[in-house]
């Protein structure tokens, strides 16, 4: 086994060689490249422009917004939406902290659980493979519903008002396991596993020392999904967190947004009371400001995962 794993220097050399070869034979022709680039640029613009639009609107004065409609160059700038969020939120910095904490801890725990489970499923020699696959298939579709979940989390696991109630429910799901299992199956040749087994490596070692390094793109994918899941989660906070000090960012913001929406939609039933309750709330600009506040930090986390999806930067380490 040891002889088959290449030393780092040798590997780098090899990558250089592959890249050089790719340069010679393996690239698309320049006209095709240009067409592809144009296509992708157009697609990217379709995606970026609305986002810029959102940022601009979040800085637009609410009154001038409703006067002129959405415009790329606002007539009047205003920071009111941001001021409102900052003053309405109990403590936006603390919420950021809570969110960052649960995202990091949750992603790590989630990756470990997903990885170990998926790895076991990916092993052809595992006798209970089908059983454990069935175990995760059923919950992919059937769930006990909000009330049953609430009872288990609060009465059995006693996690009410605990940060664990925000972390644990999201750390594992059938979809991630099955995707990762497929990654393991396709990117790790059986020969590698078998030869390691013959060399007497335990499954534990096999998983941490060989499988993880080889399946980095797959793990990064699941890591990204988990991170996004934690970052965007507000539902668990609504269900399990009555402690105002431990409210994650998304729930803090969603509460502001849903209050505004609800009061606007229930004008007819609430009459004057609704108007009084909704007084001074900026409506549209605040939604946009919420998007900006809640997504900008996570967008910066994206490149961390992205490097694993860019071909040429990772190379299957073990070969021959």
């Amino acid at each position, binding site marked *: 086994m040891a002889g088959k794993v290449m030393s780092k220097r040798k590997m780098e050399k090899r990558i250089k060689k592959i890249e050089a070869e790719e340069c010679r034979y*393996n*690239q*698309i022709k320049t006209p095709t*490249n240009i067409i592809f680039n144009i*296509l*992708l640029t157009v*697609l990217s*613009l379709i*995606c970026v422009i*609305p*986002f810029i639009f*959102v940022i601009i609107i979040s800085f637009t004065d609410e009154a001038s917004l409703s006067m002129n*409609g959405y415009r790329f160059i606002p007539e009047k700038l205003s920071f009111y939406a941001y001021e409102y969020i900052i003053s309405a939120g109990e403590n936006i910095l603390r919420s950021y902290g809570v969110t960052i904490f649960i995202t990091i801890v949750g992603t790590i725990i989630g990756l470990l*659980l*997903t990885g*170990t*489970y998926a790895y*076991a499923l990916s092993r052809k020699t*595992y*006798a*209970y493979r089908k059983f454990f*696959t069935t*175990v995760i*298939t*059923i*919950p*992919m*579709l*059937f*769930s*006990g*519903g909000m*009330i*049953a979940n609430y009872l*288990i989390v609060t009465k*059995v696991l006693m996690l009410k008002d605990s940060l664990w109630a925000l972390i644990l429910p999201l750390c*594992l799901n059938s979809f991630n396991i099955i*995707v990762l299992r497929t990654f393991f199956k*396709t*990117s790790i*040749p059986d020969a590698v596993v078998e030869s390691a087994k013959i060399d007497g490596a335990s499954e*534990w070692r096999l998983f941490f020392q060989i499988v993880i390094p080889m399946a980095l*793109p*797959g793990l990064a*994918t699941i890591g*990204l999904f988990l991170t*996004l899941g934690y970052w965007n989660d507000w539902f668990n906070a609504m269900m399990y967190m009555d402690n105002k000090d431990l409210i994650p960012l998304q729930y803090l913001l969603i509460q502001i947004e849903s209050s505004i*929406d609800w009061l606007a939609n229930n004008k007819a039933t609430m009459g004057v009371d609704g108007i009084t309750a909704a007084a001074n709330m900026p409506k*549209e600009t605040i*939604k*946009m400001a919420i998007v900006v506040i809640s*997504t900008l930090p*996570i967008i910066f986390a*994206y*490149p961390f995962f992205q490097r694993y*999806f*860019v*071909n040429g*930067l990772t190379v299957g380490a073990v*070969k021959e």
Partner: protein
Amino acid sequence: MRVNTKKADKPKGNFLSRLKANKELLILSMPGAIWFLFFAYLPLFGILVAFKKFRLSGDGFFYNLFTSETVWFDNFKFLFSSGDAWIIVRNTVLYNFTFIILGVAVPVVLALLLNEIKNKGMMKIYQSSMFLPYFLSWVVVSYCVFAFLNPEKGYFNAVIQQFGGEPVSWYTETKFWPFIIIFMSQWKGMGYNTVVYLASICGIDKTYYEAAVLDGATKWQQIKYITLPLLKPVITILLIMSVGGIFKADFGLFYQLPKNSGPLYPVTNVLDTYIFRALKTSGEIGMSSAAALFQSTVGFVLIMIANKIVSKVDNENALF
């Protein structure tokens, strides 16, 4: 079933030795299995609510669950009671069918494009840009779309009038909406969905390409004979899983985006919006559980069928 045949094949004494042989992998799958026990299986008792007229007569959920009258399938009736049941099912299935096909085609094509372009820096930029719409909630997207489609001051009508056309009443004309809905759903999901395929491509053993290049294969041939076949396991598994969601619809896409406009219901009313509107006044938890159970059961049956078909054709890539 399967376990039974195995038992018949082998003497019973083998159980322990089999356990021992699989000990390490069993330990690896245990943390995940325990998670599923608590967060997915224990709450399944909640499904019983679907068959109950849930009433509160004493202390504790279980007491109430068991003392509530069992009404069997009465809670499911409302799903079929309206004259529109057929239209709603048709909409849900047709949209989802389109989404399943496009959900594979669009991201795979994008992943290939991104992977082939020469400049890796640009690739990162394209990829990140296409991820942005994922962060916008449907409410926010609906505001942006409204800026274009607003019948009075929207951009589209302004352009149409510029060229002497009749302004279109976008939120009452059904004919545009299937396209708008499909386009927007792809727009929002493509960045996220591409990640899995990009990572899969990254995980492909480079030696395949080296060999192909040495044999003088063109880029197109490499894609056709190496990349796509190696993506097949991921594509298959994601297809099987998405089939399970054929009776579920993204609520925001069908409710927020068309601004809940009545005249558009013939093309926007899907199961999830129907259920929401039906139950918003009565709040009967038995009925909402029944609806979810109905959707899940159909999905489960379809997944089983899809898996059966796949395992007949290509056992390796089936779910289990």
